[in-house]
């Protein structure tokens, strides 16, 4: 069982993601995480501001439970199923990240520069995290889905809209990493 504590290779994890999608279909639901963000808006009272949030959020309770499970999964995986897991990045990526100020590259699961406790007292980091989140939330709802709903479920169903959205995800990501990162890091 030692292998479980090691990072899981992509050819094991990829099919397990598809399995998650199948189980959700089998219990009569759909795989889509960003819908929860809309539900959370409604629960916070956004239904009083516009019609988009006027729906029976209780019908989405199952998805909030999946979301809560993801939190538990993150806790279990990091605390009990890992020996200090660190992504085995391409040495070129590590070198490049160090040049732009990410000293934690190759030493941590996520950059401590962005996700360490210091982040809460650094206005620039807070702005990066907040703006990143706003773009993800706005973009996911505008596109009608995120990586789970479009890139995995939608393309699995051979839907052209999901392919277009996924191409968009990549255009956006490439613009951010290649054109905007040099301006902010």
């Amino acid at each position, binding site marked *: 069982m030692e292998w479980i504590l090691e990072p899981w290779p992509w050819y094991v994890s990829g099919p397990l993601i598809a399995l998650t999608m199948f189980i959700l279909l089998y219990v009569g639901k759909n795989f889509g995480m960003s819908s929860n963000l809309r539900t959370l808006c409604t629960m916070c009272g956004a239904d009083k501001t516009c019609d988009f949030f006027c729906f029976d959020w209780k019908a989405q309770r199952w998805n909030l439970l999946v979301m809560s499970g993801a939190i538990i999964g993150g806790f279990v*995986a990091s605390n009990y199923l890992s020996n200090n897991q660190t992504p085995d990045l391409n040495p070129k990526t590590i070198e490049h990240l160090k040049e732009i100020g990410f000293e934690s590259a190759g030493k941590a699961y996520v950059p401590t520069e962005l996700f360490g406790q210091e982040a809460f007292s650094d206005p620039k980091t807070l702005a990066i995290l907040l703006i990143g989140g706003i773009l993800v939330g706005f973009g996911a709802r505008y596109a009608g889905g995120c990586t789970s709903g479009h890139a995995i479920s939608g393309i699995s169903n051979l839907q052209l809209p999901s392919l277009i959205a996924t191409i968009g995800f990549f255009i956006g990501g490439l613009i951010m990493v290649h054109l905007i990162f040099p301006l902010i890091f």
Partner: protein
Amino acid sequence: MKNIVYLLIGTFFGIVMYKSEAASWFRIYEMFQFQSIHMYGLMGTALAVGIIIVQYIKRNKVKDVNGNPIVIADKDKSIPRYLIGGILFGLGWALAGACPGPMFVMTGAGYFPILVVILGAILGTWLYGLIKDKLPH
């Protein structure tokens, strides 16, 4: 009982996201630098298996656990909404290094600044709801 099932599905998904490193900002960055097969292999195998599963469901009219046919709703035809929305999502995905699933996985893993990303994502969703009628769809 059903609630526990949903919670368990989410827990399984969260573990897979963490162990596959899809919840790692570094992996997202490396993917957009084209410096590893990791994320492409992850999504590629998920899709390969996913396509087979969905085709099997459709051809054999597989029913769900309640005996209802499994239907995956078709999405409305459009280009601007998927392309522009997709690009905005991609910008945020690369910047925050997390999409809506992994955000919650990272919360569980104890990287609490991700809560700022989640707050932003909720605000972004709300903002979309406020101005959606003015956007091209």
